[in-house]
């Protein structure tokens, strides 16, 4: 993919000043998206559609393809969005750092006011076509605004910078936590840490932050019940602890995970096929179209199917890290780093949850779980990655054509 220039022959005259510079070719510009990344994303959407197709036939009476069709539409819209975003020069977004931050905060705050309640938490704003989940879009906006902030402060990277960045990031974390949505706020925290890490924050800053986080977390768990305030709902803690002894209580949190493990384990090497997948077909598997969709893949298509999905995810992460290294500027590197690490975290926690090595946190699997907000935001994020990639390639190509001294 790297365009190779014919090196200038030795002794040849340097390009005369009176000649016009070589034309910039817009034609090559739009080809500079990363095809591997496209393959990974589209492949994952296909896997998602296949899993939804086998698992949700009886979920909506009379509409066996309800979820498949909708997820398909989100996928198509998402691909368009991805392409659109990849055509934008992401660097321009830097000037909107603070407006983006404002939009993020206000949209998340809006949910607390207007959002519809589902299972004890407010996460959605109901729109005509789908339920918009601002905290999902917030992931991307947080990365953009925090990256912009870091770049502005890059000349004097000191304790102040880290502290401010953390404070800026902490506001949306707390807002999301108040919904309450523990899983998404953890994703935010990971995103903030990733951006600081890529920006080059000293390791001792992380050590201090980690210590502070540990103290804060233990205080948040221990103190409020004494004062009589609910910060963590008991079900959240129960989910976290039931993971330590997953089979202790088959009636609720542990039960979901046990059923998920049975589903995945029973898939064996090549899966039980659509007809015989009883864990899915007889609805032993909870949340089989959202949080536990990976278990559907596991039962129906076995280790082969799981390995395919994992490979596509690995491809996604590899390309993300690769794009991080080739970014034309720090802003791009920070965006790529934040997005990639967030994706990695979501993938690991979600799949870890389905195979019983992570607690149940309600984090969806990117591009695999059913859900418009998650799907579209992931495509936007991947679009930004593509933009970073395209800009990097473009810059390299131009520089190759027009060598500067």
């Amino acid at each position: 993919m790297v365009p190779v220039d014919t090196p200038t022959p030795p002794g040849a005259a340097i390009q005369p000043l009176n000649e016009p510079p070589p034309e910039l070719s817009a034609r090559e510009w739009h080809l500079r998206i990363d095809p591997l990344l496209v393959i990974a994303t589209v492949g994952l959407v296909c896997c998602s559609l296949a899993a939804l197709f086998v698992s949700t036939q009886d979920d909506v009476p009379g509409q066996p393809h309800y979820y498949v069709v909708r997820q398909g539409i989100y996928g198509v819209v998402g691909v368009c969005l991805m392409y659109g975003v990849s055509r934008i020069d992401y660097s321009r977004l830097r000037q909107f750092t603070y407006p983006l931050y404002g939009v993020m905060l206000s949209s998340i705050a809006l949910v607390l006011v207007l959002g519809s309640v589902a299972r004890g938490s407010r996460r959605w704003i109901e729109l005509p076509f789908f339920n918009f989940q601002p905290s999902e879009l917030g992931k991307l906006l947080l990365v953009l605004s925090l990256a912009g902030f870091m770049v502005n402060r890059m000349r004097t990277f000191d304790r102040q910078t880290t502290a401010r960045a953390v404070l800026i990031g902490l506001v949306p974390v707390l807002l999301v936590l108040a919904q309450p949505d523990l899983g998404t706020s953890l994703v935010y925290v990971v995103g903030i840490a990733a951006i600081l890490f890529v920006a080059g924050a000293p390791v001792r800053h992380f050590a201090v932050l980690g210590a502070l986080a540990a103290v804060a977390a233990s205080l948040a768990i221990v103190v409020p019940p004494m004062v009589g305030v609910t910060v963590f709902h008991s079900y959240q803690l129960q989910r976290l602890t039931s993971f330590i002894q997953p089979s202790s209580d088959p009636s609720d949190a542990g039960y979901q995970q046990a059923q998920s493990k049975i589903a995945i384990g029973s898939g064996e090497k090549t899966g039980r096929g659509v007809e015989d997948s009883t864990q899915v077909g007889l609805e032993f598997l909870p949340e089989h179209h959202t949080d536990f969709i990976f278990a559907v893949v596991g039962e129906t298509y076995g280790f082969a199917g799981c390995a395919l999905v994992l490979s596509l995810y690995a491809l996604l992460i590899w390309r993300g890290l690769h794009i991080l290294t080739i970014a034309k500027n720090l802003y791009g590197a920070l965006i790529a780093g934040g997005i990639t690490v967030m994706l990695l975290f979501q993938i690991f926690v979600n799949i870890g949850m389905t195979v019983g090595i992570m607690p149940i946190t309600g984090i969806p699997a990117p591009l695999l779980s059913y859900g418009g907000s998650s799907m579209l935001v992931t495509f936007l994020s991947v679009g930004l990655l593509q933009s970073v990639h395209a800009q990097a390639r473009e810059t390299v190509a131009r520089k190759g054509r027009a060598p500067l001294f």
Partner: protein
Amino acid sequence: MMPPNFEQRRPAITPQLAVRVAVLGGIALVAFSIVFFRLWFLQVLTGEEYVSQARENRVRKVRIEAPRGDIVDRNERPLVQTREAPVVQIVPSALPEAAREAAAKYSMARSKAERKRLEAEDLLEDFDQQHRPTARRASPRKESAGERRDRKLEQRAVRQRREKLKKAAVQAQPVAIPPVPSDQKLRSLYSRLSKAIGLPVTRIHERVTEGIADAPYANVTLKTDISREQYNFLYERREQFPGVEPTSLYLRDYPHETIAAHLFGTIGEISPEEQKLERYRDVAAGTRVGKDGIEESYDDYLRGTPGYDKVVIDAFGDRDERRRVTRREPRQGNRLRLTLDLELEKTANDAIQRAISAAAVNGAKAGAYVAMNPENGEVYALGSYPSFDANLFAKPLSESTYRALTSKANGEPLLNRAISATYSSGSTFKPITALAALEEGIIEPGTVINDTGAFRLGNQTRYNAKKARFGPVALSSAMKVSSDVFFYQLGAWANDDGAIIQQWARQLGLGRTTGIDLPGEFPGLIPDRRWRDDGYRKYRACAKKAGAAIGSTEALYACGGIERPWSVGDNVSLAIGQGDVQTTPLQMAVAYAAIGNGGRVVLPHLGMKVENGAGQIVEELPDRSRRNVAFADEHRSVILDGLRRAAMEPGGTSAHIFGAFAAEGLTIYGKTGTVETGPGRPDQAWYAAYVPHSTRPMVVVVTVESGGFGAETAAPVACSMVAKWFRKSQQLCRAPVVTG
């Protein structure tokens, strides 16, 4: 200048960033590896395990109860059958908490009352022991008027005390069922159910409370034989009646009602304790197993194999009707054929009923009979009177009915007196004393003892029954006329040689359970020096500790009734089956069989064959003898001669009953027995007979509590049984004695 080449012109990636990206890449690699190997472990290494878990997840076995096998008599006449009936059951765990709390309260109160009753029963037993004739001492000197008044007063106090104790011992203080809990849900459920099945609310509450108290693990059957309409009504509205289960149940049916009712026992859901036993290893919870009698002994054969429906269910526990189900039909238990003869059992039951009503003037209420094959232990008939309708136990039984069935006033119909009641056996014990004396060389077959009608022992004098005098008699004649003095003398002589009579009695099967295939058998007691002296030592130590005088009433309450050591008088009493000796009718039958058959102590048994539904034999239940007792043939023949003369020769104790059988070609070897049970109390009647025959030998033992003389009350019952068994006319027993 050389233009910098392309690679160098790439945007600089600082070494620091390179390291950090490498770290991120490393983290990603580790994360993916963890997930990958976890998947490998779950799906490839342990996948099969999860496949089976997934299968179990969706397939439930719904157990279908198997009907129990029938029980038939030796001629295949049905004794116990099974029928299917629609019933309403209550699932205790699905009821509101209030119902279970009430039951727990009731259960606690009930066990407290029962504990009190048992205490009173123990006291009463000790009390009676003190006032037995053997415990009374003759006072040689005259008493003054004042002493007599004191004694009278004391006697009255004792009598009153006894009455009080008896009342407390016979029946536990009735425990009231707690009122229907005020729980709104429970009340509404009961009242709706009451309308649906036509059982008053209080009755429902009573049954549920009693049922949970009896067996907290099992469903409570509220009503059996409900109508189809009631069944359908409840079945269609199961959601509105939580905890109420209309179902069908196999009920036991006893076509002959009271006949042999004691033998069968009941069935009920297996208890958690039983489930731990090896014999119930493969039995699932909720299965009904035999709880007593033959149902318990032969439960393995009768139980059958439950079937199941394999149904596919979804995560909500609902049956998925679209999916294929497999079904294994339940298999009815095997048919058990007993050695019992229904016709003989009926005859015996009628005869003992007649005898008891004839002896009702004496206060006769209860009795028992056994007929057995002396060669192999097959029990032809075994029963206890009064009996009860066995069908009562096939349905929910109320506490009051149960109390009536166990009350002393009604004669405790549930008690199987043939194996679970012990009595002194009276003169029917004499052949055993005779055998011991002959075998141990105390007497020769021809030894003559002069029966003066009285036997002096220390300062006591004992007499023959009816104060008879028989003059010089040898063993055979002594048995014929039932001379007590002759046997008193044997008892006195035997006492010098130790526990001879006791040894022989135990050898022949007394003083220990016979091993019959029925649970609840009592061992009885053959008293000897060791037993009484040990008991007395304990009594003395206990009385000393309690500070009570030996022989006083306080000592009796505190320490029991063994208030004197062994004396020769005890052995003398034992020689004629009086005193402390306690045997069951079945034990006597075994002893007579052993003497009759030449020394084989048989194992009495009711089970004969196990047959399958098609009537083919699955298993022949073996005849077993427990051991052989060796004794000289001439000794046996002299004893049998005595027994024959007692039953057949004019002047024999029961010749007026059995004399007529001689003309029918049957020889009866029989002995009467009359047991003194205490001053002012009627005697207990016994009869034991051995009838040899080439194909149908028989040994019969009959006893009637408070029946009076053995020859008058017990012998006619035995005679009826013998006549029936050998297909002779019942008139033989009533024939006038032909005296020669």
